[in-house]
């Protein structure tokens, strides 16, 4: 094992291979507060990539209702249990990662979902979450709150899928950090399925190989955001490129949200993979829960997000989400207008922070007519 630096843990850790960062790293920010669980993203991915034989059960993108929705069943709870929850000391992780706690004979600490574990892609999604006047009929650890967690592969900086493949069939592209399974080389041992803590590699019984989210790389190569991003109804997603913390540039939207404002946080950083999908945590959920899921930065992130109305830059950047099909590697705000830019600084999209408001009286004096509220 090599020693590598994981900035999300604030320390070095052990990894199967030495540190080798791509020229640039694909990354994304998801705002959980805006997701409505319409599953349009799930279907956009499904129809594009996983409509074949053997892919029936696969959801490279899934949206689960937390705390009781999982895909596959209990994916996060199982690993948290195995890691004994994980211990933070401020922003430094002092527990063990999946690499450091690999038992003898294993490359990574993991577990294998069974076919049945994929059969309930969002159990708990219809649970009541409001006031029950007569009291609840049973007591649960989390009583009456929920939120939607949209998940894709995290195209991790230290992928456990890649580390656990004994054949080297999984690779991280040097040009964009996208993690792919070589479909010619894979022999379907399912070691990656066991190793990925996010359970985002799937075994295809008809092709005999494992398959995973490809970050729509044919689109990314043309500067276009992936399918689940451009089809998102809630406009919760933004794709882009993330720098190392010390190289963060405020004009890079992902850097701004993750490194500068620290409003978007990694999913289960304690697993040790340096995942590259970052989440703005839900503001209404007990933070004892979200701290375990997104790390120690949760309380500050929520404070910053809640204060966005007094922070025109942050509010402005959030307006850019879902505004263009194109990846916006840069952005700027001038007054009330936010602009998404390409690498050269050309405008890709302009968005007003406040849409003009027209108030029409219900009774039109000029025409002496009452207006109905039809569009």
């Amino acid at each position, binding site marked *: 094992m090599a020693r590598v630096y994981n900035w999300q843990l604030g320390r070095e850790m052990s990894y199967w291979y030495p540190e080798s960062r791509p020229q640039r790293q694909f990354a994304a920010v998801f705002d959980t507060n805006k997701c409505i669980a319409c599953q349009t993203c799930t279907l956009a991915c499904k129809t594009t990539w996983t409509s074949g034989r*053997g892919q029936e059960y696969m959801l490279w993108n899934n949206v689960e209702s937390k705390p009781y929705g999982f895909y596959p069943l209990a994916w996060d709870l199982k690993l948290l249990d195995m890691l004994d929850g994980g211990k933070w000391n401020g922003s430094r992780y002092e527990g063990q990662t999946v690499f450091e706690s690999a038992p003898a004979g294993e490359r990574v600490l993991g577990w294998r979902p069974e076919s049945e574990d994929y059969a309930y892609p969002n159990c708990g999604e219809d649970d009541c979450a409001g006031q029950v006047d007569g009291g609840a009929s049973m007591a649960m650890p989390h009583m009456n709150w929920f939120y939607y967690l949209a998940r894709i592969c995290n195209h991790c900086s230290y992928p456990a899928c890649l580390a656990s493949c004994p054949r080297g069939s999984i690779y991280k592209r040097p040009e964009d950090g996208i993690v792919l399974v070589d479909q010619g080389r894979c022999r379907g041992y*399912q070691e990656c399925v066991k190793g990925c803590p996010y359970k985002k590699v799937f075994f295809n*019984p008809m092709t005999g190989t494992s398959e995973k989210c490809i970050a729509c790389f044919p689109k990314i190569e043309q500067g276009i955001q992936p399918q689940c991003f451009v089809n998102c109804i809630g406009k919760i997603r933004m794709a882009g490129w993330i720098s190392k913390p010390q190289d963060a540039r405020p004009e890079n939207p992902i850097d701004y949200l993750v490194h500068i404002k620290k409003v978007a946080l990694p999913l289960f950083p304690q697993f040790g993979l340096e995942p590259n999908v970052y989440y703005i945590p839900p503001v209404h959920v007990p933070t004892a829960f979200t701290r375990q899921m997104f790390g120690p930065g949760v309380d500050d992130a929520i404070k910053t997000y809640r204060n966005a109305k007094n922070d025109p830059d942050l509010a402005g950047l959030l307006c850019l989400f879902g505004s263009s099909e194109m990846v916006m590697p840069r952005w700027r705000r001038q007054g009330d207008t936010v602009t998404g830019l390409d690498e050269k600084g050309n405008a890709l999209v302009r968005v007003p922070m406040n849409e003009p408001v027209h108030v029409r009286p219900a009774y039109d004096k000029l025409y002496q007519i009452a207006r109905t509220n039809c569009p």
Partner: protein
Amino acid sequence: MTMKRKLALAGALMATVACQTKAPVANEVVAMPVAKLPAAPQDSGWSAASEHTAKLLPQDLVDPRLMKASTAEVRVRAVASGSEIAFRLEWTDPVVNDLPGPGRFLDGCAIQIPRVREANPPDPQMGQAAKPVDIAFWRADWQASVNGREDSIRALYPNAAVDHYPFEAKSIEPGSAVAKEMAARYAPAQAVGNRRVGPRVSPVEDMVAEGPGTLSPGPGGSRGKGERTDGGWSVMIVRKMPEGLAPRQRTQIAFAVWEGSKEETGARKMRTGWIPLSVKESK
């Protein structure tokens, strides 16, 4: 009891043990020359060959390892005819594992022979750089497919409900080039010619390796057939005679067995070291 009587008793016991064994036990794999290779693992033709019982060890040298021993031994017979050599591997395995799927693993076995016959053979663990080993690999799911199991998700999950595959839309002619091209789009491993993809035409796959993690498709021609016995598998693998192997010559052979119910796959397997392999002179 006198020493003489003790020895006599022990001799009688040994004789009983020998009588129970159908064929003489050999401490190496000796292929019997036959006019015609048996067609199936349970053919009477195999009784001519002596049986070698190979003890299996867990693969515990490279990660991921098999930490707990499973299948204890594999019983091997070999026969040779002309340019071909056939092996029959039998082992105890009460549970059939021939359905692939997430979290499901398959029963299987393999034979491994050095590409070049030499005094200093390659590493028995999948060979080594510049010293390749040829491997013939049989798997229970491929056998099921060859035996006629349909290549569909419903054959693997009888209750599977599938609404629609785009390449089976009403507007597309079944089996047409358009349908095939579209289906391949959703099966990248098939599109790039990965031999894992069904439907199988043979239950045996030829592989070559030059060390752990280097397994790749090998020059072909091997064939085989696996059958269930009472509480186990009986698998026959036929391959071409190893280069230069003739009576009075020796090479090496190694065996591996995968027990699907124990999640054995790839490197997680029971295996042997090298065992001498020779061909008996025809009488």
